């Protein structure tokens, strides 16, 4: 009885979450700032099928996960196949809440769990930038995800359990550089989405944030990037992290590859100050052994 009451209240809460409509006014975005953030967030990687010579941002890139294969959708301004028909408010809601037009619950493979931390202005800037991209009339590929993970309605409950809506509040206990690093790493570049292990429902295990994920995207291991000296990157200096983000080169002069190689294509476009902020933030994390 108690359990069914709990289920009913969960369902009621979920309904409330769905019904609550966005009320904020649309912001004027700056496409140049948007381009910078878009690069930092490395949106290109998942939304462009580089391997099969796909058009930029037209989608189709396969991302294999323990739950199945997702295909990045077309985010060009094409009105039929892309997001040309989306208003700024709809785009804002997708990033802030993970809900697309028509109240479609977006799968968390789209890292709205991180993007929710972005400021209203940054989201508006990315939207403005996307409007400047060439439209490509390429239909989306349906995801190939096994039940029940492919059932969108289950996301209502998933969100209640695991989703905390942003934006990310600055932490007054830290300085501006650390806060910028925190914002870039967690809200924009969504580093934790790959470097944090996930539970059996695919949510990030925040108690082990940045301690590495043995089952990262495409079956690859994402390493521990906490300052643990043995398992993490505790022996790296902040400068080493900056060099990695700028060039892909590790302190031993190996070059990163796999998914991180794609990420570097984004982080190499950041300013040195922003790369330094990320390094400062990562160095401040609690060292976690393991992975």
């Amino acid at each position: 009885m108690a359990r069914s009451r709990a289920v009913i209240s969960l369902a009621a809460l979920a309904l409330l979450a769905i019904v609550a409509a966005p009320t904020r006014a649309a912001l004027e975005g700056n496409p140049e700032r948007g381009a910078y953030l878009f690069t930092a967030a490395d949106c290109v990687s998942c939304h462009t099928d580089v391997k099969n010579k796909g058009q930029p941002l037209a989608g189709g890139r396969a991302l294999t996960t323990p739950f199945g294969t997702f295909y990045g959708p077309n985010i060009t301004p094409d009105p039929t196949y892309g997001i040309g028909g989306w208003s700024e408010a709809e785009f804002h809601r997708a990033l802030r809440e993970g809900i697309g037009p028509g109240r479609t619950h977006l799968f968390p493979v789209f890292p709205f769990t991180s993007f929710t931390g972005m400021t209203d202005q940054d989201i508006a800037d990315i939207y403005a930038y996307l409007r400047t991209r060439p439209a490509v009339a390429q239909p989306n590929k349906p995801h190939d995800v096994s039940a029940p993970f492919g059932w969108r309605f289950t996301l209502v409950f998933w969100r209640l359990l695991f989703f905390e809506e942003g934006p990310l509040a600055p932490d007054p206990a830290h300085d501006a550089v650390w806060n910028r690093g925190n914002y870039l790493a967690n809200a924009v570049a969504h580093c934790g989405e790959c470097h944090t292990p996930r539970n059996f429902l695919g949510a990030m295990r925040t108690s082990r944030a940045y301690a590495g994920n043995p089952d990262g995207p495409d079956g690859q291991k994402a390493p521990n990037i906490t300052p643990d000296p043995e398992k993490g990157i505790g022996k790296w200096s902040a400068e080493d992290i900056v060099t990695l983000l700028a060039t892909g080169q590790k302190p031993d002069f190996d070059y990163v590859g796999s998914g991180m190689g794609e990420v570097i294509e984004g982080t190499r476009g950041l300013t040195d100050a922003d790369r330094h902020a990320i390094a400062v933030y990562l160095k401040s994390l609690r060292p976690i052994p393991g992975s």
Partner: protein
Amino acid sequence: MRKHLPVLGAAAAIVTLLAVGAAASFAADNETIVRDRQAAMRQRGTDLRAINAYIDDKGGDQASAVAAAKDMIALEQKIDASWLPGTSSTDLPGKSNAKPEIWTEMDKFKALGDILKSGQEKLLAALEKGDKTGAKAIIADFGRNSCGGCHTAYRVKAS
């Protein structure tokens, strides 16, 4: 006839043993190839470190940097010859990190290697002239397009 059976059986056993032994020794050979390849790659890293110590003014000297660049060029032949069938990550799981796509996309793979080779020649020339800024730009270019490009497309994440 029955008398011959044990003989035949023994012969078959010997043939089987030989075949298994041969396969195992091929695998061992391939493992050696992979180990040597990985050692050569690490050596390339050590060379780059010596070169960077010179161009970043971190205790390196020009002569050592030039020697390291020459060593990198010599290593290339060794690494080039190591991309043999049977040495991919599917052939030797946990030992090799070379994606099998290398052998299905050999043209693309070799093109990435060519970027590195021409970059190394240019790097040597720049170092011989003492052109640190030029050397830095050359490393940045092949680091991104060859080293990083190849590791992104063709290396399995090891750890």
